[in-house]
């Protein structure tokens, strides 16, 4: 599973069926269901996944699938075909 796949899974799971088909272009501005509650779940899942606390300066930038995928990739997660 690539970081993009993982980011898509995290966002899709958080926004639920209201979000429709979430793709790489999706962002909080364009995706139904990506509300404050969903965002809490997204960031908590990112931190659980990476095992780290997202730096404060980066938190406000993680508002799209692409940004989340880039963060996961930088953090070295997951990049494993076994996942």
């Amino acid at each position: 599973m690539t970081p993009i796949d993982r980011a898509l899974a995290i966002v899709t799971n958080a926004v639920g069926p209201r979000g429709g088909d979430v793709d790489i272009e999706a962002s909080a501005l364009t995706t139904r269901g990506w509300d404050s509650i969903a965002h809490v779940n997204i960031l908590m899942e990112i931190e659980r996944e990476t095992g780290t606390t997202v730096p404060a300066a980066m938190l406000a930038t993680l508002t799209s699938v692409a940004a989340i995928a880039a963060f996961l990739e930088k953090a070295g997660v997951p990049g494993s075909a076994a996942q």
Partner: protein
Amino acid sequence: MAKLVTRALTVKEVSASYARTHRNPRFLKTLRRYRRANQKTRFYHAIIDRQTGDVIGTHGSYYIPVRTMTVEVILSDLAWWGKEVVAEVRGALIVAYHDSGRVDQVTCNINSRNFGSLINASKLGFEQVGVNYMSMFDELENGPADYITFSLRGEALKKQVEAYKSEAANDAH
């Protein structure tokens, strides 16, 4: 139609809001930051459910020289979390401040661990302009908290005001 109403907070509502806040330790810290409104540079608005008339939270606004208003929302009724209350209330107040002709910038400071508020600010067009590391004590975490400063100004502010007015006009029809 907007689901909420905002108006100046009454003394009775302040007490009710305090009582509700006291019952939930999550909001205790907000009490320490509360400053009485003077209706000149510091305002407190009650956030009221239009259907029931209940006060579900408060919205504070503080004028900072020069031509800047900083805003904060305390949504003490958890049942209203995740229902875009912040977007509706803050949107309406941003329009009011902008149209007053006295405000060129709206800012807010958000605890970096308050993920829900971070996305609310981003959705309203606020741009992250800085991080104040270890700038407040977080009672829940029992340690220092980082606060992210957001700003809405210039073209982004105008765009947001127009968007909100357009949405309000559509709702009215």
